[in-house]
Every structure is written in C-alpha cells, then in structure tokens.
C-alpha cells in the first residue's frame, strides 16, 4: 500500500491525488495521442469512442452523480446535432459559435425538462424523460424547415478557424480534445460545492435538503449541465455520422447510453469512458466475430467429419447473420452486468486494485452493498 502524506492545502486541492497519479494520466494521454500511429485502421471507431465518452460523461453526471436516471438523452444529442448543423450550414456561423450555441440550446431544453422533473422521483422521472425523447423525435420528423424531416440532411466536414478537420486523423484529435476538455471540466465541477451537492442529492434527498441543499436549483443545474455536454457531443456526432435523420436519435440510442454508464460503473468518470469504449467497440467486435465464429465452429466440428464441419459452419453462419442478434447481445450484457457486477467495469477494476494493494487480506465484504428491503412509500 502507498500512503500519501499531505503537507499543504495545495496537495488536498490538486486534481490528482499525488505525482505518481499525475504521471500515470500524463502517460495515458501520450499513449492516446500516439495511438493513430499504431492502429490507423480503427481511427473512426476510436473517434466514436471519444464522442460516446462525452455522452457517457453527460449521463454519468445526471444518473451516476445526481441519481436522476434519464432515458431520453438521445433527444439532447439530437437537439445538439440539429442545432449545430442549422447554425453552421443555414446561418453560416463559425464552428465554435455553432457548437457553443448548440450546447446552450440543449442546456436550455434540459432546464425545461428538468423543471417538471423536480416533482418526480425515481421511475417516474425515467418514464417522463422517455416520453420527452419520443416527442422530440417526432419534432425532428415534422419540423422540416430546420431538420429536413425524414429526408435527412447531410453534414459538412468541420472547418475551425480556417483549418479543415476533414481527415480521420484530424477529426480524431478534435474529438480527443473535446473529450479531455469535458473530463477536466466535469472533474472540477464534481469536486466543487455543486458536485458535492449533486452527490448528496443522489444519496438522500431528504438529508441533502436538511443540510441546506436547494433541491430544485441543483437538480435543474444537473439537468442543464448534462444536456449541455450532450449538445456539444451532438455537434461532434453530427460530423461523425455525416448525415442526420430523425430515426438515429431513437430510444434505442438512449438505452445504449444508459448501458454505457451501467457497464462502465455508475458514479465514476472512469466508468463513463470505459463504458463508451465498450459500447462503441462492441458492434465492431460483433461484426468481426460474425466472420470468424462460423469458421471456428466449422473447424471444431470438422473433427467429427467433413460433412459435420460444413453443416455446423452453415448453421452457425445463418444464426450469427440474423439482423436481430445485436440488440439481444446488448440486452444480455446489460442483464449480466446488473446481476453480477452492479459496479461495472470500474468496480471490477477497483476490486482488482484493492486485491493487490492489500494482498493477503482481501475480503469480498469490502465491496458488499447492504440490502434494503422495500417498504412502500404509498401510505394507505
């Protein structure tokens, strides 16, 4: 185990725990910057990881830190994307201004949703955000002057201050820069009084209220902050997919975002990034597996005879080529994580860390959560 001896307030206030940690993060940043040299083929996929990371960050603030679970975040992403493209291409604003306006509009809508949400708790809020997302999707379809409706609208490559970010490599660094900026901002907000108030609300609204946390103000702020981040992510997302259509921003996308924060680990910024990497890379893995798995099974079955091998190959190939398989795999992963690792990838990582740092003394009970048996809040 390593102990930190803090000798001044500056040590306590630093963003990183100690110089060792700071060097680790520096190394990580260097690795990510050098990554395009190592895997040039996957650059677009990794840019998507960064954009999803921003989305995960946004939902993490709301669901993981404030405890308000939203099933409508795809709508904020869509608002950000459409607003950005509208300002950029129809009004001809500069890129930075368009992104800022997109984030601002998304945040404003977030406040609008957040205000009625103050009266709701738990599942009701989730249902309300779901309804909101469905309404917004219909708005995208019908508001043709801006969104071009079902025809969709193409998105140009980003040009910032006259510098074109059209190539995959340049766009990769753009996404990386925005993600790092978002992480830095969020990490700082979370250790400021605002973030502390959010966590207090998550853990117990009543306790937070009696400690002087203004519930309405902080919940609205959480909504606005989360929606604003999502709007910025939406602007990048618009450039990434290059073509906006209403059915992209469906409930399924919202569910993917939620999957992201759950798989990553609720209540940690690391988790948002892990989850984003997982969710963005999973389709890539699945499509690779689609090509590889039938061959493996065929070879394995070929031990029994040539016909068995060919038959197994065809059967497995037919199975994995089913279009409906992918959401099922997502669902399965979600279920497995909730059942066996509610703390997500980050939780697993923490457990491994603790196992090694306390080596012979690791106890499972360290991470065991207390079960609370339900008592109804409906009084009758």
């Amino acid at each position, binding site marked *: 185990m390593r102990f930190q001896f803090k000798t001044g307030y500056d040590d306590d206030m630093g963003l990183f725990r100690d110089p060792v940690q700071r060097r680790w993060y520096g190394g990580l940043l260097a690795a990510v910057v050098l990554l395009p040299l190592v895997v040039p083929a996957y650059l677009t996929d990794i840019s998507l990881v960064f954009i999803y990371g921003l989305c995960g960050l946004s939902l993490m603030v709301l*669901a993981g830190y404030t405890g308000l*679970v939203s099933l409508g975040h795809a709508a904020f992403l869509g608002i950000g994307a459409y607003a950005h493209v509208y300002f950029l291409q129809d009004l001809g604003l500069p890129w930075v201004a368009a992104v800022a306006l997109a984030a601002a509009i998304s945040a404003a809508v977030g406040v609008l949703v957040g205000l*009625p949400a103050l*009266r*709701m708790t*738990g*599942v*009701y809020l*989730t*249902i*309300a955000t*779901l*309804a*909101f997302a*469905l*309404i917004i999707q*219909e708005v995208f*379809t*019908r508001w043709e002057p801006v969104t071009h409706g079902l025809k969709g609208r193409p998105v140009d490559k980003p040009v910032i201050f006259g510098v074109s970010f059209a190539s995959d490599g340049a766009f990769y660094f753009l996404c990386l820069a925005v993600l790092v900026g978002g992480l830095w901002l969020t990490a700082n907000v979370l250790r400021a009084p605002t973030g502390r108030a959010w966590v207090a609300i998550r853990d117990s609204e*009543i306790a937070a209220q009696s400690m002087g946390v203004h519930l309405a103000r902080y919940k609205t702020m959480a909504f606005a902050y989360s929606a604003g981040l999502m709007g910025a992510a939406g602007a990048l997302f618009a450039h990434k997919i290059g073509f906006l259509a209403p059915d992209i921003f469906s*409930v399924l996308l919202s*569910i993917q975002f*939620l*999957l992201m924060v*759950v798989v990553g680990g609720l209540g940690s910024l690391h988790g948002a990034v892990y989850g984003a990497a997982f969710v963005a890379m999973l389709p890539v893995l699945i499509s690779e597996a689609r090509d590889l798995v039938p061959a493996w099974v065929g070879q394995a079955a070929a031990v029994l005879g040539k016909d068995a091998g060919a038959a197994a190959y065809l059967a497995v190939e037919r*199975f994995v080529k*089913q*279009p*409906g*398989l*992918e*959401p*099922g*795999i*997502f*669902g*399965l*992963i*979600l*279920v497995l994580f*909730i*059942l066996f690792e*509610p703390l997500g990838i980050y939780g697993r990582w923490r457990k491994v860390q603790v196992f090694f740092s306390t080596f012979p003394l690791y106890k499972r009970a360290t991470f065991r*959560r207390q*079960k*609370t*048996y*339900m*008592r*109804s*809040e*409906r*009084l*009758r």
Partner: protein
Amino acid sequence: MGCIYGLVALGFVLIYKATELVNFAQGDLLMLGAFVCYMFVVWYGIGYWVAFALAVGIVALFGAALDGTVLRRVIGQPQFAVVMLTIGLGAMFRSFASITWGSEIYTLPTPFSAKTTRLGGVSVSHEYVAIIVGTVVLCALLYAFFTYSRVGVAMQAASQNQLAAYYMGIPVKRMFSLIWAISAGVAAIAGVLLAPVSLIDINLGFIGLKAFAAAVLGGFGSIPGALVGGVTIGLIELFSGAYLPLGVKDVAAYVVLLLVLALRPQGMFGTVGRKKV
C-alpha cells in the same frame, strides 16, 4: 385501442402494486404472447381457444420463471437496477423473437374475424367487442382478487412492507413469482386480443410505451385507474388524430404523460405519500 392500453397498463400496475418495480419488458411479453398464440394456431393448427389458453399459460409460466431466476437477485438493490434489467430483458426478447419467428408481419385468424354487430346505429366488429369484454372482465376479476381473496390481500401486504409481510408468515418470494405470472399472463392476453386488430411483428412491444402513459394517468398502483387511463389515452389519440395537425396523434399520449407527471404525479386514482424518515 384504449382497452389494449388499459390491459398492458394493468400488467404494469400489477407488478408495481405488488413489488414496487416497474417492468419495462411488459410490451415485449405482450409480443411473445401474440407470437406464441400465432405459432400454435397457424403452424400447429390448434383451435383458437386452446391456443389462447396455451399461450397465456406459457407466457405466465415464463414470467414466473423470469422472476425466480433473474429478478429475485436484484431485490434490495436500487429501483434503477430493475429498470435497466427489464430493459435488457426486453431487448433480449425482441432479439429472440426476430430469430425464432423472423421479422415478417403476421396476421392471426380468429373465430370472430370479419364479423360485425350493429349496436345502436354503429357497426362494431367482433374483434373490438372481444377486446372490450375481455378487458372489463379481466379488470373486474383482478380487482376482486386483490380486494377479497386471501392471496390478494397477502400480496398487498408484501407490497407495503416486505420484511413485515415475511414475519407475518407470508411467503413473499412465492407471492412475487405469482404476481409476475399473473402480470405476464395479462400481457399475453392483451397480445392475443390485439393480434387480430393490429398485426404481429417484433415491434408490437412498443405499445408498452403508450401503456405507460395510461398507467401513469390512472395512477400507478390502481387497477381501475389503469383501465380508465387506458381508455382516456385511447380517446385522446383518436380525437387528436381527427382534429389536430398530422403527427400530433403519435405523440399525444406522451404529451399527456408529461403533463400528468408535471401537474399531478399521483395520477387520477393514485396514492403517493411523502417518504417518512
């Protein structure tokens, strides 16, 4: 249509009433029910009524098994875990259905297809009569069950305080399995009744989203509320389709849902108290 919303909402309400969980996979259970019934009627050529009973029985058993194997493990964890769990399960069901039955669209033949009755100058097709009668009967039965039968009262006890109910000798686990079975069965009934009116495909489950609106409007946790809410949502959709611009019809249910949640979260018949510490 409103009655179908009511029926699906009934499923939500039952589970909420007994376990305070919200089942986001309800619509997908409905879809499974419709598909199973279709399979028996068309593929195996079994009579409609037998197939109906079989489908409801199978889906109900499936619901109980689901509770026993999966959902029981998350009791005592935050409500959010269950929401995510049922969303994941719903995605799995849809995927399973699309692999098993393909993504084609089917129609279910029934004994009362294409027959109509004239009722005070309005001709009503028998499929709709079946839906309405089925819903009202089912609703009355369930209401009576919860209010008068021993098991129903035990369920209410289990829903109000799990530990206390357990100390009183109520087999809480079995109650939960039973309630999941009933709720899944109700979903299957709704699916089979809906099948002749709408068509069967894997996206049938999305009706569950509108049923949410019905359940919330009626007040989560109230059986008659679910029915009234469902009918109200159905009527609102109908009128907004007739009198308001295009596209409003599809979102009317959600707008109502948001309004209800913002203005009167407990719904028409609901009871929501403030949490005591």
